[in-house]
């Protein structure tokens, strides 16, 4: 979604990152029950999920606040690095 917003819709990197995260809310809420109730028993480690969420909610707040302070260019390079790493991981170990 982020490359789509930047390269096609022409949004700034900061606005694209923020917009993408807002759009994930309805997508996550819609996708969650499909994955959970379609493919048999849900495969979740509840304990790990709970502790992950404790950390990630604090992290998401701090990250969202920090976004304002990161310059556009560094932000764009940061996004690109994460995407290359994920892309390599996906292509090599699907």
């Amino acid at each position: 979604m982020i490359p789509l917003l930047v390269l096609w819709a022409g949004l700034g990197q900061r606005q694209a990152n923020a917009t993408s995260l807002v759009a994930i809310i309805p997508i996550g809420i819609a996708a969650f029950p499909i994955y959970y109730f379609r493919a048999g028993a849900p495969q979740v480690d509840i304990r790990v999920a709970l502790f992950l969420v404790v950390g990630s909610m604090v992290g998401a707040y701090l990250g969202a606040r920090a976004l304002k302070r990161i310059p556009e260019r560094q932000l764009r390079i940061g996004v690109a690095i994460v995407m290359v790493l994920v892309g390599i991981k996906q292509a090599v170990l699907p």
Partner: protein
Amino acid sequence: MTLYDLAAIIAGLVAGLLSGAIGIGGGLVFVPMLTIGFRVTQTVAQGTSLAAIVPTALVGGITHLRQGDANVIAAWWLGGAGVVGAIAGALLAVHLQSGVLARVFGAFYIAAALLLIQRAMATRESEPPAPSS
């Protein structure tokens, strides 16, 4: 609380920071973290990550909305199209070989990242950060 739980909180914090700043749901980071760091299977990693994404995106997304960072109209369009896409994707994924899909996405990410780097190089160094509220 065990050391393992503490590691999960720290992993969550790192994934949350990336999620809030970069705008990813967290799944991109959660899944490899869980399979490599916590030694859970790919299926459990995906299920656990999915459970953690919604609260993470809610906190990050609402913070962005309150700060006025997000383009609300674009978010509506993306979110709406994403809901349709997610349902179609979930129904379609059953009929596709997952390895093929993953490689296609991997290639897409790398190509898009290269375009982003090219844009970053074209961005002026002097561009100031947004004023803080």
